Protein backbone atom coordinates (compact mmCIF):
# COMPACT_ATOMS: atom_id res chain seq x y z
CA UNK A 1 0.00 0.00 0.00
CA UNK A 2 3.03 2.22 -0.12
CA UNK A 3 2.31 3.69 -3.51
CA UNK A 4 -1.04 5.04 -2.35
CA UNK A 5 0.54 7.38 0.16
CA UNK A 6 0.91 10.87 -1.11
CA UNK A 7 3.14 13.32 0.75
CA UNK A 8 1.25 15.48 3.21
CA UNK A 9 2.89 18.75 4.12
CA UNK A 10 2.00 18.50 7.78
CA UNK A 11 3.60 15.08 8.04
CA UNK A 12 6.75 16.40 6.41
CA UNK A 13 6.69 19.40 8.74
CA UNK A 14 6.31 17.36 11.93
CA UNK A 15 8.99 14.95 10.78
CA UNK A 16 11.35 17.81 10.05
CA UNK A 17 10.70 19.30 13.47
CA UNK A 18 10.47 16.27 15.74
CA UNK A 19 11.92 13.54 13.55
CA UNK A 20 15.59 13.78 14.62
CA UNK A 21 14.72 13.83 18.34
CA UNK A 22 12.44 10.81 18.06
CA UNK A 23 15.00 9.06 15.89
CA UNK A 24 17.83 9.53 18.38
CA UNK A 25 15.66 8.46 21.34
CA UNK A 26 14.47 5.41 19.45
CA UNK A 27 18.00 4.43 18.42
CA UNK A 28 19.13 4.66 22.05
CA UNK A 29 16.28 2.38 23.10
CA UNK A 30 17.32 -0.17 20.51
CA UNK A 31 14.59 0.41 17.92
CA UNK A 32 15.58 0.60 14.27
CA UNK A 33 13.47 2.76 12.02
CA UNK A 34 12.42 1.63 8.59
CA UNK A 35 10.66 3.59 5.90
CA UNK A 36 11.25 7.20 4.97
CA UNK A 37 9.17 8.72 7.78
CA UNK A 38 10.41 8.52 11.34
CA UNK A 39 6.94 9.47 12.62
CA UNK A 40 4.33 7.73 10.47
CA UNK A 41 1.44 9.84 9.10
CA UNK A 42 -1.26 8.22 11.21
CA UNK A 43 0.56 9.17 14.44
CA UNK A 44 0.84 12.76 13.25
CA UNK A 45 -2.89 12.69 12.55
CA UNK A 46 -3.62 11.26 16.01
CA UNK A 47 -1.58 14.08 17.57
CA UNK A 48 -3.60 16.52 15.47
CA UNK A 49 -6.82 15.04 16.81
CA UNK A 50 -5.56 15.48 20.36
CA UNK A 51 -4.64 19.10 19.67
CA UNK A 52 -7.98 19.76 17.97
CA UNK A 53 -10.09 18.24 20.71
CA UNK A 54 -8.08 19.94 23.45
CA UNK A 55 -8.52 23.28 21.69
CA UNK A 56 -12.22 22.60 21.36
CA UNK A 57 -12.46 21.80 25.05
CA UNK A 58 -10.61 24.96 26.02
CA UNK A 59 -12.83 27.09 23.79
CA UNK A 60 -15.90 25.39 25.22
CA UNK A 61 -14.78 25.88 28.81
CA UNK A 62 -14.41 29.62 28.32
CA UNK A 63 -18.04 30.11 27.36
CA UNK A 64 -19.48 27.57 29.76
CA UNK A 65 -22.49 28.74 31.72
CA UNK A 66 -25.53 27.25 33.41
CA UNK A 67 -27.93 30.17 32.97
CA UNK A 68 -27.55 30.93 29.29
CA UNK A 69 -25.65 28.15 27.51
CA UNK A 70 -24.33 28.90 24.05
CA UNK A 71 -25.24 26.95 20.94
CA UNK A 72 -22.07 24.94 21.00
CA UNK A 73 -22.56 23.97 24.62
CA UNK A 74 -26.11 22.79 23.92
CA UNK A 75 -24.92 20.61 21.05
CA UNK A 76 -22.20 19.02 23.17
CA UNK A 77 -24.61 18.52 26.06
CA UNK A 78 -27.06 16.79 23.74
CA UNK A 79 -24.34 14.48 22.42
CA UNK A 80 -23.18 13.56 25.91
CA UNK A 81 -26.80 13.12 26.95
CA UNK A 82 -27.40 10.66 24.13
CA UNK A 83 -24.34 8.64 25.12
CA UNK A 84 -25.56 8.58 28.73
CA UNK A 85 -28.95 7.45 27.42
CA UNK A 86 -27.30 4.58 25.56
CA UNK A 87 -25.36 3.54 28.65
CA UNK A 88 -28.47 3.68 30.83
CA UNK A 89 -30.49 1.74 28.29
CA UNK A 90 -27.98 -1.06 27.81
CA UNK A 91 -26.05 -1.41 31.04
CA UNK A 92 -28.36 0.18 33.57
CA UNK A 93 -27.47 2.34 36.54
CA UNK A 94 -23.94 0.92 36.69
CA UNK A 95 -23.25 2.15 33.18
CA UNK A 96 -22.41 5.78 33.85
CA UNK A 97 -18.89 5.10 35.05
CA UNK A 98 -18.00 3.94 31.53
CA UNK A 99 -18.94 7.30 30.04
CA UNK A 100 -15.40 8.76 29.89
CA UNK A 101 -13.80 5.91 27.94
CA UNK A 102 -16.74 5.25 25.65
CA UNK A 103 -17.44 8.85 24.72
CA UNK A 104 -13.74 9.62 24.30
CA UNK A 105 -13.35 6.74 21.89
CA UNK A 106 -16.45 7.87 20.04
CA UNK A 107 -15.15 11.43 19.75
CA UNK A 108 -11.68 10.25 18.68
CA UNK A 109 -13.07 8.00 15.97
CA UNK A 110 -15.60 10.59 14.78
CA UNK A 111 -12.98 13.31 14.41
CA UNK A 112 -10.58 10.78 12.88
CA UNK A 113 -13.13 9.68 10.28
CA UNK A 114 -13.94 13.25 9.30
CA UNK A 115 -10.28 14.18 8.97
CA UNK A 116 -10.13 12.11 5.80
CA UNK A 117 -12.50 14.57 4.11
CA UNK A 118 -10.30 17.60 4.76
CA UNK A 119 -7.79 18.28 1.99
CA UNK A 120 -4.21 17.96 3.19
CA UNK A 121 -5.06 15.51 5.97
CA UNK A 122 -5.73 11.81 6.05
CA UNK A 123 -8.01 9.74 8.25
CA UNK A 124 -5.93 8.00 10.93
CA UNK A 125 -8.70 5.43 11.21
CA UNK A 126 -7.84 4.28 7.68
CA UNK A 127 -4.72 2.71 9.17
CA UNK A 128 -5.10 -0.71 10.77
CA UNK A 129 -2.71 0.28 13.56
CA UNK A 130 -5.02 2.96 14.95
CA UNK A 131 -8.21 0.90 14.78
CA UNK A 132 -6.50 -2.14 16.28
CA UNK A 133 -5.25 0.06 19.10
CA UNK A 134 -8.80 1.21 19.85
CA UNK A 135 -10.12 -2.35 19.67
CA UNK A 136 -7.41 -3.77 21.95
CA UNK A 137 -8.10 -1.00 24.47
CA UNK A 138 -11.79 -1.88 24.59
CA UNK A 139 -11.06 -5.62 24.66
CA UNK A 140 -8.79 -5.47 27.69
CA UNK A 141 -10.99 -2.88 29.38
CA UNK A 142 -14.16 -4.92 29.29
CA UNK A 143 -12.39 -8.06 30.52
CA UNK A 144 -10.86 -6.12 33.39
CA UNK A 145 -14.23 -4.59 34.25
CA UNK A 146 -15.87 -8.02 34.12
CA UNK A 147 -13.29 -9.49 36.48
CA UNK A 148 -13.68 -6.51 38.79
CA UNK A 149 -17.44 -6.84 38.83
CA UNK A 150 -17.86 -10.60 39.18
CA UNK A 151 -14.53 -11.87 40.49
CA UNK A 152 -12.11 -13.89 38.42
CA UNK A 153 -13.67 -17.31 39.11
CA UNK A 154 -17.23 -16.30 38.33
CA UNK A 155 -16.12 -14.37 35.29
CA UNK A 156 -14.32 -17.36 33.80
CA UNK A 157 -17.20 -19.60 34.83
CA UNK A 158 -19.60 -17.53 32.78
CA UNK A 159 -17.61 -18.49 29.70
CA UNK A 160 -18.01 -22.14 30.65
CA UNK A 161 -21.80 -22.41 30.54
CA UNK A 162 -24.59 -19.85 30.29
CA UNK A 163 -26.98 -19.87 33.25
CA UNK A 164 -29.66 -22.52 33.11
CA UNK A 165 -27.59 -24.86 30.98
CA UNK A 166 -26.10 -28.08 32.26
CA UNK A 167 -22.43 -27.66 33.22
CA UNK A 168 -21.21 -30.40 30.88
CA UNK A 169 -22.13 -28.15 27.94
CA UNK A 170 -19.04 -26.21 28.90
CA UNK A 171 -16.80 -28.57 27.00
CA UNK A 172 -18.57 -27.39 23.86
CA UNK A 173 -19.26 -23.81 24.88
CA UNK A 174 -15.89 -22.79 26.28
CA UNK A 175 -13.84 -23.03 23.05
CA UNK A 176 -16.63 -21.31 21.12
CA UNK A 177 -16.78 -18.50 23.66
CA UNK A 178 -13.02 -18.04 23.66
CA UNK A 179 -12.90 -17.91 19.88
CA UNK A 180 -15.81 -15.48 19.69
CA UNK A 181 -14.26 -13.19 22.27
CA UNK A 182 -10.96 -13.21 20.42
CA UNK A 183 -12.76 -12.52 17.17
CA UNK A 184 -14.31 -9.41 18.68
CA UNK A 185 -10.96 -7.68 18.57
CA UNK A 186 -10.56 -8.54 14.90
CA UNK A 187 -14.11 -7.60 14.00
CA UNK A 188 -14.03 -4.26 15.82
CA UNK A 189 -10.77 -3.20 14.21
CA UNK A 190 -11.38 -4.56 10.73
CA UNK A 191 -14.87 -3.10 10.47
CA UNK A 192 -13.68 0.43 11.12
CA UNK A 193 -10.53 0.03 9.04
CA UNK A 194 -12.34 -1.53 6.08
CA UNK A 195 -15.08 1.09 6.02
CA UNK A 196 -12.85 4.12 6.24
CA UNK A 197 -10.03 2.80 4.05
CA UNK A 198 -12.49 1.58 1.44
CA UNK A 199 -14.22 4.94 1.36
CA UNK A 200 -10.90 6.76 0.94
CA UNK A 201 -9.90 4.33 -1.80
CA UNK A 202 -13.15 4.90 -3.69
CA UNK A 203 -12.72 8.67 -3.45
CA UNK A 204 -9.12 8.32 -4.64
CA UNK A 205 -10.09 6.15 -7.61
CA UNK A 206 -12.93 8.46 -8.63
CA UNK A 207 -10.63 11.43 -8.22
CA UNK A 208 -8.03 9.87 -10.48
CA UNK A 209 -10.67 9.27 -13.16
CA UNK A 210 -12.57 12.59 -13.11
CA UNK A 211 -11.10 15.08 -10.63
CA UNK A 212 -14.09 17.41 -10.62
CA UNK A 213 -17.47 17.13 -8.82
CA UNK A 214 -17.73 13.37 -9.38
CA UNK A 215 -16.13 12.39 -6.03
CA UNK A 216 -18.55 14.70 -4.18
CA UNK A 217 -21.38 12.16 -3.70
CA UNK A 218 -18.83 9.71 -2.32
CA UNK A 219 -17.54 12.33 0.08
CA UNK A 220 -21.10 12.99 1.19
CA UNK A 221 -21.43 9.26 1.79
CA UNK A 222 -18.24 9.56 3.81
CA UNK A 223 -19.95 12.04 6.15
CA UNK A 224 -22.71 9.51 6.79
CA UNK A 225 -20.35 6.52 7.14
CA UNK A 226 -17.98 8.38 9.44
CA UNK A 227 -20.66 9.24 11.98
CA UNK A 228 -22.25 5.81 11.67
CA UNK A 229 -19.02 3.93 12.22
CA UNK A 230 -18.11 6.03 15.24
CA UNK A 231 -21.57 5.38 16.67
CA UNK A 232 -21.32 1.67 15.96
CA UNK A 233 -17.91 1.37 17.58
CA UNK A 234 -19.33 3.06 20.66
CA UNK A 235 -22.46 0.91 20.67
CA UNK A 236 -20.51 -2.33 20.30
CA UNK A 237 -18.13 -1.42 23.10
CA UNK A 238 -21.14 -0.65 25.31
CA UNK A 239 -22.65 -4.02 24.42
CA UNK A 240 -19.40 -5.83 25.19
CA UNK A 241 -19.14 -4.01 28.50
CA UNK A 242 -22.73 -4.98 29.27
CA UNK A 243 -21.96 -8.62 28.49
CA UNK A 244 -18.99 -8.55 30.84
CA UNK A 245 -20.50 -6.51 33.67
CA UNK A 246 -24.06 -7.83 33.74
CA UNK A 247 -24.59 -10.24 36.62
CA UNK A 248 -27.08 -12.84 35.47
CA UNK A 249 -30.15 -13.34 37.62
CA UNK A 250 -32.12 -15.70 35.48
CA UNK A 251 -32.51 -18.47 38.04
CA UNK A 252 -34.95 -16.60 40.23
CA UNK A 253 -37.07 -14.86 37.59
CA UNK A 254 -38.24 -17.25 34.92
CA UNK A 255 -39.75 -15.70 31.88
CA UNK A 256 -39.31 -12.13 33.02
CA UNK A 257 -37.30 -9.60 31.21
CA UNK A 258 -34.15 -8.29 32.77
CA UNK A 259 -34.98 -5.18 34.80
CA UNK A 260 -33.16 -2.90 32.40
CA UNK A 261 -33.50 -2.84 28.68
CA UNK A 262 -32.22 -5.34 26.22
CA UNK A 263 -30.38 -8.57 26.39
CA UNK A 264 -27.27 -8.38 24.29
CA UNK A 265 -27.49 -10.36 21.09
CA UNK A 266 -24.57 -12.64 20.33
CA UNK A 267 -22.60 -9.85 18.77
CA UNK A 268 -19.44 -10.97 17.05
Amino acid at each position, binding site marked *: *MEKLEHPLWIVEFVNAMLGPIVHSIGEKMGYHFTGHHVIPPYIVMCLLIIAFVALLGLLLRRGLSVENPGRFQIVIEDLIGSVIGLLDEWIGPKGRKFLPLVSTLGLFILVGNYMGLVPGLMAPTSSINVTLGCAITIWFYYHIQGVKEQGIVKYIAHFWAPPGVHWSMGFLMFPIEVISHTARMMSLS*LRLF*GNIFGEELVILVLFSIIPFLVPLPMMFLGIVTGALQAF*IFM*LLSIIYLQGAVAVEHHEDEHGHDAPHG*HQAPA*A*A
Partner: protein
Amino acid sequence: MINRSVLSTIALVLVGGAFAPLYAQEAAAAASADIARWSIITGGFALAIAAGLAALAQGKAVSSATEAIARNPGAAGDIRGALLLGLVLIESLAIYVFVIALILFFVKPF
Protein backbone atom coordinates in the same frame (compact mmCIF):
# COMPACT_ATOMS: atom_id res chain seq x y z
CA MET B 1 -29.70 -19.31 -25.33
CA ILE B 2 -28.51 -17.06 -22.52
CA ASN B 3 -28.30 -19.99 -20.15
CA ARG B 4 -25.94 -21.95 -22.35
CA SER B 5 -23.62 -19.01 -22.89
CA VAL B 6 -23.47 -18.36 -19.14
CA LEU B 7 -22.71 -22.01 -18.49
CA SER B 8 -20.01 -22.10 -21.11
CA THR B 9 -18.44 -18.96 -19.67
CA ILE B 10 -18.36 -20.51 -16.20
CA ALA B 11 -16.91 -23.72 -17.66
CA LEU B 12 -14.25 -21.69 -19.44
CA VAL B 13 -13.32 -19.90 -16.23
CA LEU B 14 -13.18 -23.17 -14.32
CA VAL B 15 -11.06 -24.87 -16.99
CA GLY B 16 -8.79 -21.87 -17.07
CA GLY B 17 -8.48 -22.04 -13.30
CA ALA B 18 -7.64 -25.73 -13.46
CA PHE B 19 -4.95 -25.28 -16.08
CA ALA B 20 -3.45 -22.08 -14.77
CA PRO B 21 -1.19 -23.83 -12.23
CA LEU B 22 0.23 -26.00 -15.04
CA TYR B 23 1.15 -22.93 -17.04
CA ALA B 24 2.50 -21.29 -13.91
CA GLN B 25 4.90 -24.13 -13.31
CA GLU B 26 6.46 -23.74 -16.72
CA ALA B 27 8.37 -20.61 -16.06
CA ALA B 28 9.23 -19.20 -12.68
CA ALA B 29 9.23 -15.64 -13.95
CA ALA B 30 5.76 -15.93 -15.42
CA ALA B 31 4.45 -17.57 -12.27
CA SER B 32 4.26 -14.51 -10.06
CA ALA B 33 2.58 -12.46 -12.77
CA ASP B 34 0.10 -15.29 -13.23
CA ILE B 35 -0.64 -15.50 -9.52
CA ALA B 36 -1.12 -11.75 -9.37
CA ARG B 37 -3.57 -11.92 -12.27
CA TRP B 38 -5.52 -14.73 -10.69
CA SER B 39 -5.59 -13.07 -7.30
CA ILE B 40 -7.10 -9.97 -8.90
CA ILE B 41 -9.78 -12.09 -10.53
CA THR B 42 -10.39 -13.96 -7.29
CA GLY B 43 -10.63 -10.75 -5.30
CA GLY B 44 -13.13 -9.27 -7.71
CA PHE B 45 -15.32 -12.34 -7.72
CA ALA B 46 -15.13 -12.73 -3.94
CA LEU B 47 -16.14 -9.11 -3.42
CA ALA B 48 -18.99 -9.42 -5.91
CA ILE B 49 -20.38 -12.52 -4.21
CA ALA B 50 -19.96 -11.05 -0.73
CA ALA B 51 -21.58 -7.75 -1.71
CA GLY B 52 -24.51 -9.51 -3.36
CA LEU B 53 -25.22 -11.81 -0.44
CA ALA B 54 -24.74 -9.03 2.10
CA ALA B 55 -27.17 -6.86 0.12
CA LEU B 56 -29.68 -9.73 0.16
CA ALA B 57 -29.35 -10.16 3.90
CA GLN B 58 -29.53 -6.45 4.63
CA GLY B 59 -32.57 -6.12 2.40
CA LYS B 60 -34.28 -8.87 4.34
CA ALA B 61 -33.40 -7.24 7.65
CA VAL B 62 -34.64 -3.82 6.54
CA SER B 63 -37.86 -5.21 5.08
CA SER B 64 -38.78 -7.06 8.26
CA ALA B 65 -37.84 -4.08 10.39
CA THR B 66 -40.05 -1.73 8.37
CA GLU B 67 -42.86 -4.27 8.56
CA ALA B 68 -42.48 -4.46 12.31
CA ILE B 69 -42.46 -0.68 12.63
CA ALA B 70 -45.57 -0.43 10.47
CA ARG B 71 -47.37 -2.91 12.72
CA ASN B 72 -46.22 -1.39 15.97
CA PRO B 73 -45.02 2.19 15.55
CA GLY B 74 -44.63 2.50 19.31
CA ALA B 75 -41.65 0.15 19.30
CA ALA B 76 -39.90 2.05 16.50
CA GLY B 77 -36.96 3.12 18.65
CA ASP B 78 -36.09 -0.35 19.88
CA ILE B 79 -36.53 -1.87 16.44
CA ARG B 80 -34.33 0.78 14.89
CA GLY B 81 -31.56 0.05 17.36
CA ALA B 82 -31.71 -3.68 16.72
CA LEU B 83 -31.85 -3.08 12.96
CA LEU B 84 -28.78 -0.85 13.03
CA LEU B 85 -26.82 -3.39 15.02
CA GLY B 86 -27.85 -6.23 12.74
CA LEU B 87 -27.04 -4.25 9.61
CA VAL B 88 -23.58 -3.50 10.92
CA LEU B 89 -22.90 -7.10 11.81
CA ILE B 90 -24.00 -8.20 8.35
CA GLU B 91 -21.97 -5.49 6.70
CA SER B 92 -18.85 -6.43 8.60
CA LEU B 93 -18.87 -9.80 6.82
CA ALA B 94 -18.68 -8.00 3.49
CA ILE B 95 -15.95 -5.80 4.97
CA TYR B 96 -13.89 -8.87 5.89
CA VAL B 97 -13.98 -9.98 2.26
CA PHE B 98 -13.03 -6.47 1.22
CA VAL B 99 -10.04 -6.56 3.55
CA ILE B 100 -9.01 -9.93 2.12
CA ALA B 101 -9.29 -8.49 -1.39
CA LEU B 102 -7.15 -5.54 -0.29
CA ILE B 103 -4.54 -7.95 1.06
CA LEU B 104 -4.56 -9.82 -2.22
CA PHE B 105 -4.19 -6.63 -4.24
CA PHE B 106 -1.68 -4.67 -2.21
CA VAL B 107 0.16 -6.84 0.29
CA LYS B 108 0.55 -9.85 -2.06
CA PRO B 109 1.21 -12.53 0.55
CA PHE B 110 2.76 -15.13 -1.75
